[in-house]
């Protein structure tokens, strides 16, 4: 990689050992992925729950946090993805003291590095959405794909070590979605049915993700019959990234780089084209429902819920009682508004639990399952159903209203509920 004078000085250690490690890490990554040089970034976003970090990762952070302040502080605003707990509700979730201790140590280390503990995967809805063309270094695949696609920003998937490196150096290797050429469509998806429910947008994301199936693929959608809302695109993008490792999509006439489909179609041979309709959506949903007759809990998470999703959930629960655990996970920025506006009280009056600053699958999901006897899980998040099977759960993908019905039926997936799922 071509290095500037400042980058060479970092590499020599003139800005301290942490920035020296950071730039070396970035050069290794950039060399592997064919970056010619670095590009300055304006923000970084770090995924670093302690289930991922482990004790080794926390100790690694603490090692760097012990440096002198001038040597350890990030250079550009650097924020965090959800943590592995909501300290206020940890006991209810039966999380163990060692988990909370590890979380506290990780938080202290990040704070010493100058990182803002925003603990959210919906920073594009709550903190500071990037603008078109802005180069950033975001972690959490859902954050990356939304900001690339809907905001028109430029980021690759930056795992925790690389996002931290970008915060420390103020730059990232210029490869992948920082480059114009990588942002052109590689396949076209023609829709004959525009999803309505958030879970259906996630379903569509899962289908397109499976079709694309690779980080280099950029699907372009045509046939969407209305402008989808931010929560719909949030669920679509999160599932697309989760199922397909995809970091950018276009929707003709909707997303900023594809006001016309032709704007994102490269010259040359026609792109592969796929058709997706209601039959495909139904078939995908049925994969996550067929053999589960009962669930032990309902989870709304992945991504964290927006204020509007929390309002919808509160409305569905008014006058009802959830007879199994019903967890609604939102961000530390949305939660105070939910408290102030009475949404938290309404959800909790119906037996639900509002969690803040965590995400279900990033919060020791396997240990929570064992401690609570959880196995069957209903959710409206296609991303969550894709992930949570590996933690020993049997997930069912339903709409938000069906999830509420299941919770109020004591977890039984009655014929009435499942009939709606099939239709």
């Amino acid at each position: 990689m071509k290095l500037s004078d400042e980058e060479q000085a970092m590499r020599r250690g003139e800005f301290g050992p942490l920035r020296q490690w950071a730039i070396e890490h970035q050069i290794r990554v950039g060399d592997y992925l064919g970056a010619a040089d670095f590009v300055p970034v304006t923000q970084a976003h770090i995924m670093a729950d302690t289930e991922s970090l482990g004790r080794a990762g926390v100790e690694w952070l603490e090692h760097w946090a012990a440096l002198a302040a001038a040597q350890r502080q990030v250079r550009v605003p650097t924020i965090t993805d959800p943590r592995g707990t909501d300290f206020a509700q940890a006991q209810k979730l039966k999380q163990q003291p060692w988990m909370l201790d590890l979380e506290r140590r990780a938080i202290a280390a990040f704070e010493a590095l100058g990182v803002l503990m925003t603990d959210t995967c919906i920073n594009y809805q709550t903190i500071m959405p990037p603008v078109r063309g802005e180069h950033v270094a975001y972690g959490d695949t859902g954050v990356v794909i939304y900001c690339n696609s809907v905001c028109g920003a430029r980021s690759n998937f930056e795992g925790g070590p690389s996002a931290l490196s970008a915060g420390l150096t103020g730059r990232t290797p210029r490869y992948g979605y920082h480059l114009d050429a990588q942002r052109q469509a590689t396949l076209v998806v023609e829709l004959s049915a525009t999803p309505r429910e958030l879970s259906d947008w996630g379903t569509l994301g899962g289908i397109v993700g499976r079709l694309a199936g690779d980080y280099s693929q950029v699907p372009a959608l045509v046939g969407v019959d209305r402008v989808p809302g931010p929560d719909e695109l949030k669920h679509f993008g999160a599932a697309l990234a989760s199922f397909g490792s995809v970091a950018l999509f276009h929707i003709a006439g909707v997303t900023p780089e594809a006001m016309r489909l032709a704007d994102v179609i490269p010259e040359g041979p026609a792109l592969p084209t796929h058709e997706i309709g209601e039959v495909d959506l139904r078939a995908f949903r049925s994969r996550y429902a067929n053999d589960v007759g009962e669930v032990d809990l309902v989870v709304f998470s992945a991504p964290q819920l927006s204020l509007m999703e929390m309002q919808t959930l509160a409305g569905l629960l008014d006058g009802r009682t959830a007879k199994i655990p019903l967890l609604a996970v939102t961000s530390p920025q949305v939660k105070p508004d939910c408290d102030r506006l009475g949404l938290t009280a309404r959800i909790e009056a119906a037996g639900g639990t509002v969690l803040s600053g965590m995400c279900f699958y990033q919060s020791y999901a396997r240990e929570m399952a064992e401690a609570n006897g959880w196995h069957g899980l209903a959710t409206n998040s296609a991303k969550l159903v894709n992930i949570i099977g590996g933690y020993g759960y049997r997930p069912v993908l339903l709409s938000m209203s069906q999830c509420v019905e299941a919770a109020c039926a004591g977890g039984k997936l009655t014929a009435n509920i499942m009939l709606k799922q099939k239709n």
Partner: protein
Amino acid sequence: MGRMTQKIFYAAAGMGRKVCATALVASDGFSARYDLDRIAGVFSRPEHKLAGESYVGRVLVLDGAKGGVATAWMLHEMKVRGVMPAALVLNRANPIMVQGAALADFTMISGFDCDITKAIANGAEVEVDPTAARPFIRVV
């Protein structure tokens, strides 16, 4: 050259150290978060083609990277505990796998002119050398 007759397969990129171990091969993806029980050291996702198989000390030969960003930390965590594969050999790597391998100083090569999951037999003894001028995997 036909399938299984070629014994050395060159990759577009590599990092880490040379290793020799038994290959664990599947035409499926890889995500440390989605697919593994990292305490038990086995593939745990029921849908994964290697579900129930131990990955510890094996050269994983898989199609591509899947899922989220957690693998960037998890390879490091797995290495420190000593419950990790010997190497990753992928048809296609995404940035997260590269970042994770860089942090953990882990052996990974990717990018072949054939489907490497079809070229290497499950259970074969293989050498992976990312330090060569052209990184490669070969059956020994």
